[in-house]
């Protein structure tokens, strides 16, 4: 590869111009365009208003009618940020059109689809990865390191709560259609990816949710990992409680306030105090000016940079596509053995229909 070719920005197609593209990918790609790393050349969405909104960031990008048209427009990388039910089809089509793919989470709605996507990429020799931005957070990396080194002793258990009132700016209530995105397939992907990254594959999974003919709004996953580490993951689109992942270790406790990329709280032993820490990169020799660790937005950019540099062959892909499988497999286990959450406020005349609706068609 010549020096000038190496410096050429990677041509990107944005497949899906909804909220995640508008709020995250478009501004991030604009930053990378200014850095000379990426150039958005194609935009695809069935809603012309969504395309127009995102195109404000990218004057040189053309609206296209299909994924293959994005390939014809010269795109080398497709970012698939459409509704999850389209991920597999569009990813495979993008690979077939000669593009590498960064697929928004959830990677697919089933492991069968996920494996088809991985196989298509392997056969075509194209890059494929999934957006798991939390892996790039300094806080989650530090937690992994604390657990691996058993700095606070061996982990014993955990309790994670994530959610609150749903405020993602979805365009239609079809977003919640059965077979679409319930809370487990949505934020559960992130949560399970982190927990499985910290503790390994779960040995036992117990799952319950409150879906009664629709999608789950609340769910609880009871996980037991190798070594006996067990705990609850509670997800909600309904009621806000403090969003915290708490991990109990033999000599203390680690807490991560959800989505605070550069913040961790630690309790040592039985101390009455917690350390509430903002993460920094140590100052260089002779300086007392520490550098703040990456926040959410910088972490998001780090993820995109890694993908761009991988397309150019200058970096190893941080999240190989196979790593999307374990959390999806756990989600399938959950849905496959789901039980109805106890809803103790229901009256005697409601419970029978709740039970019938929960058991599905």
């Amino acid at each position, binding site marked *: 590869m010549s020096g000038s070719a190496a410096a050429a920005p990677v041509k990107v197609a944005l497949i899906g111009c909804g909220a995640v593209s508008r709020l995250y990918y478009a501004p991030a790609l604009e930053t990378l365009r200014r850095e000379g790393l990426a150039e958005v050349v194609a935009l695809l969405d069935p809603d012309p208003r969504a395309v127009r909104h995102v195109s404000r960031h990218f004057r040189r990008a053309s609206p296209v009618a299909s994924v293959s048209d994005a390939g014809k427009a010269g795109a080398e990388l497709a970012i698939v940020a459409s509704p999850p039910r389209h991920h597999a089809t569009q990813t495979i089509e993008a690979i077939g059109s000669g593009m590498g793919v960064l697929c928004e989470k959830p990677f697919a709605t089933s492991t069968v689809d996920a494996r088809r996507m991985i196989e298509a990429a392997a056969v075509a020799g194209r890059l494929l990865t999934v957006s798991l931005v939390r892996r790039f957070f300094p806080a989650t990396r530090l937690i992994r390191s604390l657990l691996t080194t058993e700095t606070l002793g061996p982990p014993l258990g955990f309790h994670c*709560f994530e959610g609150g*009132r*749903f*405020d*993602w*700016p*979805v*365009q*239609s*209530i079809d*977003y*919640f259609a*059965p077979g679409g995105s*319930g809370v487990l397939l949505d934020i559960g992907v992130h949560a399970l990816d982190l927990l499985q990254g910290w503790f390994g594959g779960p040995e036992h999974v117990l799952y319950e949710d*409150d*879906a*009664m*003919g*629709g*999608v*789950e*709004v*609340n769910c609880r996953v009871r996980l037991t990992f190798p070594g006996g580490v067990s705990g609850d993951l*509670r997800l*909600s*689109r*309904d*009621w806000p*409680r403090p969003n915290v992942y708490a991990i109990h270790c033999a000599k203390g406790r680690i807490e991560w306030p959800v989505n605070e990329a550069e913040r961790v709280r630690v309790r040592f032993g039985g101390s*009455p*105090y917690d350390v509430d820490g903002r993460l920094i990169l140590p100052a260089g020799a002779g300086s007392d000016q520490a550098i703040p660790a990456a926040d959410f937005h910088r972490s998001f950019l780090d993820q995109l940079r890694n993908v761009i540099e991988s397309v150019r062959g200058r970096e190893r892909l941080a999240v190989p596509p196979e790593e999307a499988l374990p959390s999806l497999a756990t989600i399938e286990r959950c849905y496959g053995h789901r039980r109805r*959450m*106890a*809803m*103790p*406020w*229901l*009256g005697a*005349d*409601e*419970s029978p*229909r*709740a039970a019938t*609706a929960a058991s599905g068609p």
Partner: protein
Amino acid sequence: MSVGRVAVLGANGFIGARVVEMLHLGRGADVRPIVRSAASYAPLSRFALDGRVADGFDREALRRAFEGCDVVVHAIAGSPEVILGTLRPVYRAAGEAGVRRLIYLSSASVHGQAPRPGTDDDSPLDDRQPVEYNNAKVRAERTLRRLRAGGQVEIVILRPGIVLGPRSQWVTRFADALLAGRAYLVSGGSGVCNGLYVDNLVHAIRLAMSADAARVDGQALLLGDAETVTWRDLYEPIATFLGYDLARVPRVPPVSAAEWRTRQTGAPGVRRRLRGLLPERVRRTISAAIGPSRPPRRSPWDIRAGGGPEATLEMSLLHTCAYKLPHRKATRLLGYEPLVGFHEGCRRTSAWMSFAGYPAADECANEAARRSEAG
């Protein structure tokens, strides 16, 4: 009388969501939840229902959402502007869509938070009360009656008291305040709580859907639970669930309407209110010119604790209420009798707190012990 499809406006709110849940699961009616935005539909997506998005101010969107509905339940909550501004679009859209009856959720607070002994459904209403919410509800009822006089859609106005149960702000606000160390009781919480368990309200709504028009059209009906209970009775099980001793919750004196006005119209209050009258652009310009207002600098040696809780006027009135509102008229016209007793309602509410992730007693006790050790 059989009831056709029921549209529930404000279906994602505390009351609206329970109306949808009970009607759907209890086979009370074919229900159509209506919400203001797609995102706010999330809590209702547990069910496979024919939901719609329509803003309460958007008559045309409402008309489309009401098509094919027999009854509309208006459970939109919000500011006085929302309370008053949604009535005309909703009533007219209901008329255009051929809706038979509109059930409007007003509030017992049209009679004030501490009604005079002897108050009943037909007592005269005042729209110059010190609590603006009450005035908005009084005006809403008057507006609705005027609309009925010129329209075809029947109206039934329900006036629930303090609506309790899972997700009730009267439960969660107190629980959150306890956990944050901000809870208080006015006069020991010995005042009458004119409570109504949410399922009893939905039961009344169900009755109001099918009641004979000759009996209920245009009527306003107070609704309450059977038992006479105090605020202390309401708070006790919440505190017990969380492991707190209600006896240790600070007692504060009630604030009078005059004191409250003074507190609200003190110099900063006046500035705030005047500022509120200005357009946003002018406000920003002024702020940019004079800079943000800063609190007075405090000496680092000043270690006064951050002041105890102060009662609001609303809570002062509620916690000192001396009168249990009757619901005889609802019994007479609807056949309303509460289905769920107070203690059963408290039990279900505590069980929901556990479901929602509120920390149960032992967890709270451990944290409290640590904090106390830390001084």
